[in-house]
């Protein structure tokens, strides 16, 4: 469920580890944000959240990200660069756990370091803003299982081997199925693209004809691919769950397509809260170690509401 988690943290005045901007006024505070990539809708919402927070709080926020989520070295470079260019806090959505930890090592202890969306447990990080991908996926999986009922069969289309997020979502889906008594027939990669997912789903439908009830997808692009495959195979009864809460996917849900739900991690909120938390940390206020951003399973019921809020956030 989309419970709104503690956004306003208490203003307890125990100065945390830092010395970056002792009594800096908000206006010359610079916060760097390095996301997994900027070339996708989801991270676009995170960026929008960060930018909105920057405007509201009167700080400068620099949001960057490599061209694709697989570009680990690029992200390391970006982190180094942002630290090198002298920011007062840095917020990172790591593409690779070890790589990000390494790159952030020099910043730990001198400026607040926050991670957003993906918690890889960077040692000494000030705070994590987001939800566990495992938990979020699990929620989506449980919702689907509930719709399908016990004894249903599911397939998982994950993203890419070696990708942290993909692994975690896969784990969450699997856990949900185990818990709800749903059989997972197969888990295959959709290569993170609609094209790849379409092919994979076509093959899955062929391998398990008339057996699949639920398709749990790595993200919304993958879900759209799965939907295509079902449609062209003449299947019209399927519960497809996407992930990310992209507007295009919500449109499909509202239109009554086979994409029935998408797990929205509220990326905008995440971005906003991360910047807020960073500013607090700069000012020396205490920030919670884990700031839970809400997760919503967007379905036909709450879809319109969700869309409206998206539109409002983007202004």
């Amino acid at each position: 469920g989309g419970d709104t988690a503690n956004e306003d943290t208490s203003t307890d005045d125990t100065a945390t580890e830092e010395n970056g901007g002792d009594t800096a006024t908000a206006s010359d505070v610079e916060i760097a944000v390095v996301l997994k990539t900027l070339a996708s809708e989801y991270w676009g919402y995170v960026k929008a959240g960060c930018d909105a927070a920057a405007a509201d709080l009167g700080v400068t926020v620099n949001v960057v990200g490599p061209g694709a989520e697989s570009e680990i070295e690029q992200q390391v470079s970006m982190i180094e660069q942002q630290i090198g260019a002298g920011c007062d806090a840095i917020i990172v959505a790591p593409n690779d756990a070890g790589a990000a930890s390494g790159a952030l090592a020099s910043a730990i202890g001198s400026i607040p370091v926050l991670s957003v969306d993906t918690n890889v447990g960077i040692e000494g990080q000030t705070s994590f803003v987001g939800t566990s991908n495992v938990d979020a996926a699990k929620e989506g999986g449980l919702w689907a299982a509930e719709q399908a009922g016990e004894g249903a069969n599911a397939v998982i289309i994950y993203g890419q081997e070696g990708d942290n997020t993909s692994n975690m979502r896969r784990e969450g889906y699997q856990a949900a199925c185990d818990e709800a008594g749903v059989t997972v027939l197969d888990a295959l990669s959709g290569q993170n693209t609609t094209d790849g997912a379409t092919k994979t789903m076509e093959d899955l439908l062929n391998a398990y004809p008339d057996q699949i009830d639920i398709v749990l997808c790595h993200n919304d692009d993958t879900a759209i691919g799965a939907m295509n495959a079902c449609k062209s195979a003449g299947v019209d009864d399927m519960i497809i769950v996407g992930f990310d809460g992209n507007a295009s996917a919500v449109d499909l849900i509202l239109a009554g397509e086979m994409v029935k739900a998408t797990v929205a991690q509220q990326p905008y909120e995440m971005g906003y809260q991360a910047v807020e938390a960073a500013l607090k940390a700069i000012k020396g206020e205490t920030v919670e170690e884990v700031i839970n951003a809400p997760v919503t399973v967007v379905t036909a019921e709450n879809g319109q509401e969700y869309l409206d809020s998206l539109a409002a956030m983007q202004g």
Partner: protein
Amino acid sequence: MKKKNSGKELLQKLGTLMALALLVLIFCVMMPDKFPRISNIMNIFKQASINCLIASGMLCALITAGIDLSVGSNCVLCTCTIGVLVQNFGITSMPLLIIAGLAVSTFAGFVNGILLTRLDLPHPFVSTLGMKNVLWGLALVITGSKSIAFTNTGVDNLMWIGGGSLFKTETFPGIPFSFILVLIVFGIFHVFLTRSALGRQIYCVGGNPEAARLSGIPSKNVLTFVYSLSGFMAGMAGVVSVGRLASANGNAGSTYDTDAIAACIIGGASFTGGKGTIWGTLIGALLMAVIRNGLNLMGASNDIQYIVIGAVIILAVTIDVFRNKAEARARKMAAQ
């Protein structure tokens, strides 16, 4: 180039065809209940069609001893253009959308050609690599890095091109229209490459551009045409994507370039130019689709898939090399 050659061409095709048949056989034996199903066969056709269309343009570039690394981005740009027109401008007229998409892609291809010929670049690798980035960036810019869904936007007839099937019955899943389109296009390409003057000129320019120029063949124009054609075909693949993917996403298409190249090379084209047939390319593309499909059906994970695909690519050229050698040896022994 007929008579003996068509015998040779057949052999050429047969070589890869044999590899394809072998692969199909293996998968049939391994998964007798899954692989040889009629619905799966149709799936393979469907899955091959985007690669086929892109590969046909790539083939022409390869025949001229060039390469077009921008086709993947170009295909995506076409889909995104159509997506933006539908979403932001509310255009739903099928001909208009198709023309717009094809025009953008053909123009991008034309730019590739112009860069290559007017700048006298030694090789199109870099210019098309540059264009790949540029087009990719453009696709992201116009879509605002968001994915656009086509479902329920009133373009169902356009989507039918990539998603529809013909002769569908209760028991028969129908022949995917996208593959019928491929067959039509390939038929035209066959006639074009083997029977038309311009087609032969493409081979000549590939073999020796200077000799072609001094023989009155406008090499530069031929090259510009080839890259425009490659762009056009990428655009056609983009149009098919609309229905196939039901969405436009700037980040799709990252493997399209290498897949197309692999299909052409497996099918007998060569980086040194002057070689390659469209049927070979078809077989190459089907081979790639069959491997992916079969491995998916077996539930092979990504890592294994990479290894197998890499190995098959290497194997396919190896077969080709050995067949050519055997052929040369046979002719040598026959000489009296």
